[in-house]
C-alpha cells in the first residue's frame, strides 16, 4: 500500500515537473521580448540545450587537449560540458570545504558553551559579536583578507555556516532531556565520555535540521562570494553573463543550481536518516 502510494507520488512529481517545463516553453513562444538582439528574455528549451549550452564553452579555460575559445578554437559541446564540470567543481569544492570548516568550528564552539563556565565565558561574547555582523557586508573584507580565488570564498562560507551551526548546537544541547545526563553521570561517565557518548548522539536529530538549514545558507554564501570577485565557479559565470545580458546562460546555470541543491539535500537527508536508525520514525523524516 505505502509502496504503491509512494510510486504514485513519484508519477505526480514527474507530472508537475513536466507541466512546469511546458509552461516555460509556452512562455518563450508567447513572450518574445529580447534583452538585446538575439538574446530572448525567456529562452525556450530548444535554445537552452543548443545555443546556450554551446556558449558555455566560452568559460572553458583550456587544457586536457581541448582548446579554449579564447585561444581561437570554435565552440564545442565537449568544451561546454568540461566547462560546466570544472566550474561546478570549483563552487562545490568551496562549498564543501567551507561547510566542513564552519560546521566543525560551529559545533566545537557550541559544545564549548556547555563544557565549563570558563569555556562559556571565553566563547560567548566574541560569538555573540560575530553573529550580529551582516554576512554579505563581510564579503569584500574576506576577499581582501583571504584572496578571491579560493580561501576567501571558503572562509566566507565557513563563517556563514559556523554561526548557524553554533546557534543550533547551543540550542540542541540545551534541549537534551536531563535524565540522560543524570543517568550517564550516575553510571560513572567522565566529562569527555559524556560529550562523546551522550551529548553528541542526543543532539544529532536536532542537528540534522540545522545541517539542512545551513546547507541552504551555504549555497547562498558561496554564490554571494563568487559574485563579488571570484575568477571561476558558477557564481562567476552568472555575473559574467549578466554583464552582457546573456539571460539564457544565467537561466541554464540557475537550472544547474536547482539540480545540485536538490541532490545535496537528498544526499544529506538520506545519509543522516541512516545514522538515525535508532530514532523514532518521526525524527527521521
Amino acid at each position, binding site marked *: 500500500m505505502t509502496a504503491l502510494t509512494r510510486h504514485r507520488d513519484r508519477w505526480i512529481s514527474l507530472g508537475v515537473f513536466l507541466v512546469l517545463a511546458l509552461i516555460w516553453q509556452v512562455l518563450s513562444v508567447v513572450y518574445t521580448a529580447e534583452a538585446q538582439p538575439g538574446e530572448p528574455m525567456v529562452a525556450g528549451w530548444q535554445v537552452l540545450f543548443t545555443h546556450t549550452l554551446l556558449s558555455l564553452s566560452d568559460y572553458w579555460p583550456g587544457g586536457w587537449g581541448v582548446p579554449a575559445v579564447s585561444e581561437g578554437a570554435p565552440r564545442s559541446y565537449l568544451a561546454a560540458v568540461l566547462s560546466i564540470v570544472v566550474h561546478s567543481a570549483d563552487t562545490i569544492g568551496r562549498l564543501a570545504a567551507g561547510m566542513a570548516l564552519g560546521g566543525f568550528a560551529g559545533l566545537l564552539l557550541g559544545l564549548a558553551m556547555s563544557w565549563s563556565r570558563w569555556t562559556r565565558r571565553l566563547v560567548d561574547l566574541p560569538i555573540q559579536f560575530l553573529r550580529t555582523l551582516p554576512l554579505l557586508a563581510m564579503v569584500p573584507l574576506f576577499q581582501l583578507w583571504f584572496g578571491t580565488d579560493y580561501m576567501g570564498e571558503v572562509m566566507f562560507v565557513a563563517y556563514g555556516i559556523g554561526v548557524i551551526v553554533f546557534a543550533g548546537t547551543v540550542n540542541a544541547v540545551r534541549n537534551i532531556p536531563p535524565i540522560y545526563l543524570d543517568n550517564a553521570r550516575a553510571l560513572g561517565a567522565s566529562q569527555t565520555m559524556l560529550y562523546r557518548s551522550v551529548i553528541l548522539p542526543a543532539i544529532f536529530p536536532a542537528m540534522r535540521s540545522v545541517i539542512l538549514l545551513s546547507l541552504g545558507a551555504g549555497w547562498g554564501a558561496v554564490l554571494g562570494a563568487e559574485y563579488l570577485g571570484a575568477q571561476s565557479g558558477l557564481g562567476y559565470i552568472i555575473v559574467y553573463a549578466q554583464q552582457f545580458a546573456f539571460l539564457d546562460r544565467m537561466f541554464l546555470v540557475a537550472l544547474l543550481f536547482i539540480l545540485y541543491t536538490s541532490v545535496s539535500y537528498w544526499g544529506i537527508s538520506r545519509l543522516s536518516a541512516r545514522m538515525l536508525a535508532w*530514532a523514532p520514525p518521526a525524527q527521521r523524516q
Partner: protein
Amino acid sequence: MSPPVDRRMIELANVQRTFKRGDGTTVQAISDVSLTVPEGEFVCMIGTSGCGKSTLLSMVAGLLEPSDGSIVVDGREIDGPGRERGMVFQKDSVFPWMRVIDNVEYGLKCRGVPASERRAIARTYLQRVGLAHVETAWPRELSGGMLKRVAIATVFANGGKVLMLDEPFGALDYVTRHQLQDVLLDLWDETGGKAARRTILFVTHDVDEALSLADRILVFGTGRLVDDLRVDAPRPRDTDSLLQPDMVAIKHRLLGHLGLERPTGRAVARGTAA
C-alpha cells in the same frame, strides 16, 4: 532481622537541602534528616508527593549537593556520583541511540572494563532480567516494562553496592509492576545469599509495594523523617503475607501517615501494637 554488628553502608547526618524559587523565596526540601542503613538492607522510602524523598535520593546518588550535613556511603563521604552507587530513575533513562546491550555495558565501559569482559557481564544481567532475546534491539522497539528491565540490568551490571530506585515502577501497569518487583528481588538476592546483598533505597508511593519489598520502611513528611518501621515478614512474600496481622498493622500506620486514614480507633490500636 539485621543484627547490630552489620556494617553501616549509608550514613546521613543532619542532611538539609534548600531550593531557591523563581520569586526569590527559599523552600526547605529536606530539613535535618539523619539515618543509618546497614549493608544489604532493602529500604523503602514512602511519603506524599513533594515530601522530599526524591530529593534525598538524588543527594545520596550525588546528583544534588546537600545544603548542609554529610552523606557517607561505604565509609567515605560522597562527592558527586560514584561507581559504588547506582540509580534507576522514574522516567525512561535508557539511551535511545545505543542498542540494548550497549546500554547495559555503559557503566562498565565508563570504568574501562575490557570489551569482551563487559559484554559477558552485560549478557548475564540481560539474561537475569529476561531480556536475552532483545540484546541487539533499539530501545524504541521495547515496551515501558522492558525498558525498566534494561535500566535495572544496567545498574546491577555496573556492580554498585548501593542501588537507588526512584519510583521506578510508578508508570507501569499492575501486572508488569509485580513482575518487575520479582525481578528486582531476584537480583537483590544474588547467588551469595544475604552476605552478597546490595543495599537498596527504593522510593515509592505504593504502600503495598513497600510492604512486599522492604526490610524497613522510612516515612517522610514535609522534608522530615517521620517514621521508621521494620518489616520482619519472611520472604518470599505473597498475597497472604500482606494479610498477616502485623503487616496489616503496618499498612494502617502507613496509610495514617499518608493522610488516607484518620489516626483513630482500630487503626491506631493496631499501629501502636506493631
